[in-house]
């Protein structure tokens, strides 16, 4: 277990480094940078002298690889540098943007899972055929409606027409509901599709037939067996869907004019504020890696056949089987009849 976590940790560091490097390369490939843009703005009216000082202050006059090495060393020490536009430490910017985004994404995830569960269960268990067909086509519909369309439509009706929710973030829970639901809808699409298929497959398993033969009703079978057996692929997807959640939050925050990491990164990309973009990339990559680690660690709790560290179980199981087969004697014959009576 310890070795497994160490290996996963090393992997995570590698992924973080790759993401950091890739975003650095991509943004450096764009012409200009935040400071140069500001200097070249005729309204700024900065003297050549001042410009040089500015560039030197931010290290932008040094060769690219040196800038990269410098920022990488800083990042590895937890120092993400300073914003090129506001001069605030990137860490502070992230820290102030994070709570709002965290609220949005976690509630979005809750909505997503809820919607997925309702759709998947209805697709399989609804008593009327029309409802099953309708819900079965739900995932495709959710997936094909872009976040901003869903967001704008929701805003239009819920906020402007009926006044149910505030149209700007006033910090209340009510203001959070609509954006989170919008986000949840996007995540719900793949989740409900996989969950519905998974339930259908599980229900056709022979052991479910045996449960029917025991006299169990559908609800009992769902709670005891189907739910657990069919949630494994959903769990896998949950980790992947988290990426979608992060991407979706950028759009959602823009549509609903919420401050948060999404807004932060939109602004930073617009002004080519490299340290801020890289800070966000590191943050979301770390979150993604962490979520997927949690998902992997959760597998064995759902399915006892899975071992976390991926050790070959076949050998031990085979040995166990051989042992128990030998040990197991034939049924005891002719026990007194009372034993059968409870």
């Amino acid at each position, binding site marked *: 277990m310890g070795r497994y976590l160490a290996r996963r940790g090393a992997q995570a560091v590698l992924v973080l480094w790759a993401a950091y490097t890739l975003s650095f390369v991509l943004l450096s490939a764009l012409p200009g940078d935040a400071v140069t843009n500001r200097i070249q703005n005729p309204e700024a009216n900065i003297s050549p002298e001042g410009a040089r000082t500015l560039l030197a202050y931010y290290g932008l006059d040094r060769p690219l690889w040196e800038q990269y090495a410098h920022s990488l060393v800083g990042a590895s020490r937890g120092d993400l540098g300073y914003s090129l536009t506001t001069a605030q430490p990137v860490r502070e910017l992230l820290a102030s943007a994070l709570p709002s985004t965290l609220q949005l994404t976690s509630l979005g995830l809750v909505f997503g899972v809820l919607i997925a569960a309702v759709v998947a269960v209805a697709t399989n268990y609804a008593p009327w055929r029309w409802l099953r067909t309708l819900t079965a086509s739900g995932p495709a519909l959710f997936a094909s409606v872009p976040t901003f369309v869903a967001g704008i439509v929701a805003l239009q009706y819920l906020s402007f027409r009926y006044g149910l929710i505030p149209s700007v973030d006033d910090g209340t829970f009510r203001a959070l509901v609509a954006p989170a639901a919008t986000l949840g809808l996007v995540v719900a699409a793949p989740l409900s599709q996989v969950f519905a298929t998974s339930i259908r497959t599980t229900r056709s398993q022979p052991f479910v037939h045996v449960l029917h033969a025991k006299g*169990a009703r559908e609800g009992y079978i769902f709670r005891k067996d189907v739910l657990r057996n069919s949630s494994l692929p959903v769990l896998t997807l949950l980790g992947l869907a988290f990426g979608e959640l992060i991407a979706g939050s950028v759009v959602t925050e823009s549509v609903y004019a919420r401050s948060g990491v999404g807004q932060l990164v939109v602004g930073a990309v617009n002004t080519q504020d490299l340290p801020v973009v890289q800070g966000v990339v590191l943050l979301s990559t770390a979150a993604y890696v962490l979520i997927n680690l949690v998902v992997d660690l959760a597998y064995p709790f759902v399915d006892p056949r899975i071992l976390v560290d991926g050790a070959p179980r076949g050998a031990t199981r085979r040995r166990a089987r051989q042992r128990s087969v030998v040990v197991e004697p034939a049924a005891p014959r002719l026990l007194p009849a009372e034993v059968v009576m409870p």
Partner: protein
Amino acid sequence: MTAVLSVENLTVGYRTRGTLVPVVHDVSFEVEPGQVLALVGESGSGKTTTGHAVLGLLPGNGQVTGGRIRFRDQVLTELGPRGWRDVRGRAVSLIPQDPGVSLDPVRRVGHQVEDVLRLHTDLDARARRDRVLELFELVGFTDVERRYRQYPGELSGGMRQRVLIASAIAVEPDLIIADEPTSGLDATVQKQVLDLIDDLRARSGTSVVLVTHDLGVAADRSDLLGVMQHGRLVETGPTAQVLADPQHDYTRRLLDSVPARLASARERVEVPASREVVVEVEDLRKVYGDVAAVDGTSFEVRRGETFSIVGESGSGKSTTARVLTGLTQATSGRVRLLGTDVTGLGRRGFRPLRRDVQIVYQNPYASFDPRFDVYQVVEEPLRSLRDRPPGSGGRFSGRFSGQFSGRLGGRRPHEDEVVAALEAAALPADVVHRHPRELSGGQRQRVAIARALVLEPKIVVLDEPISALDVSVAAQILELLRTLQAERDLTYVFISHDLAVVRAISDRVAVMREGRIVEHGPVERVFSAPETDYTVQLLDAIAGRRLTAGVP
């Protein structure tokens, strides 16, 4: 005494694309308390459908279209869903077909047995647990506390079936439907499980409907025998009477197909010791990881002989077959085929021998390329081995010409050989243009045999060639194999778990266990005077003693 179960003129149909196709017609029978009724028949005969109709568990598109099922004083066919749920598991329970997939893999087996108690009794958690432990003792588990906590994946097939039996008897039903309860299990385990069911029944007076394709099991374990064919119950009566004096043609045919009876019907001419040895295995070992699948076996087979290897699952018999056919390399030891040492040869080195040594598998369909029609399946070995001198550049040309020629019309290049091989396998020439999926199981196995024969091999390795077939079809395939051997002087290495079949076809037999040959010798000697306890145990587990009792 009044019947526990009485089925009156039962008719069941399956709805496919709007039309109702009847699969069970007008079936009537009665089972009295404590009786075992065996429903036998081949696949598609409607025996399983009948069994499941009694539980009200037909597949979604199946429905009872006529007749009644009475259980004591209840008419089951008139019950609603709630009524059915009350009957199932409490009054009528099921021992399912395949223990491997009949338990939820992610729940502890103890809890799965508790389901029945939870659903049909008022026992509290503690009492339920105690009852399950008691049941586990009853079905022959030791260390019941540990079993209770285990997951199905940690149990062997036989043990899983015991768990399923425990849950079938948990609330003492009056009737148990046992649907092929032992078909996937090894012979010795099958015997234990059937003994257990017998024992429980004798003690509690439960009636059993035993659905099985295995006449031997039915003969040994039932009071009443019902023979089903094409959805009809063609004959029914006390088992002993039906066996001794079958009235219906189909029953007679079925009984004549039983391998145990085939054996007695025929004498084999002994292969003279002077004939050349074509297969020579010396101290063969094959190790996978840290487990020796084959652990030092030695044997010889002479030309024209049938040498059988029997054993239970995991005994190493199939690994031996794979080594003999060059599909797996031996870890150590020596294998000589037709005088050539093949031990060190990889797949490529084995190629020249490929035309002399062929293999037929248990499941032929899985060994066919799904895109191929019968012609292409049978022609495949010709394409890959003929017209291809070693080192020539014709590696791909042969393959493609074979594939396209059929589509272009006209005669295909190997038509004569392919048709001859199909005819040798007793298939009509016109199957050439059909696809394997349109053929029955027996026909597919004939196609597989034709494919093996098309290169005119000298040695054929038969890996459980009839285990998946219905008994009458299996008998025909055995007969075919025997004829081919006589005509072509073939040498067979026959791999099987079924001792009755082995007895019917072989000259000499080797009994394998845990990678070793524990006994070998002429088949009559091994069967009449076994030398090791394990062989005795295996022979003892053969079902169908009563089938052969009347036959000299």
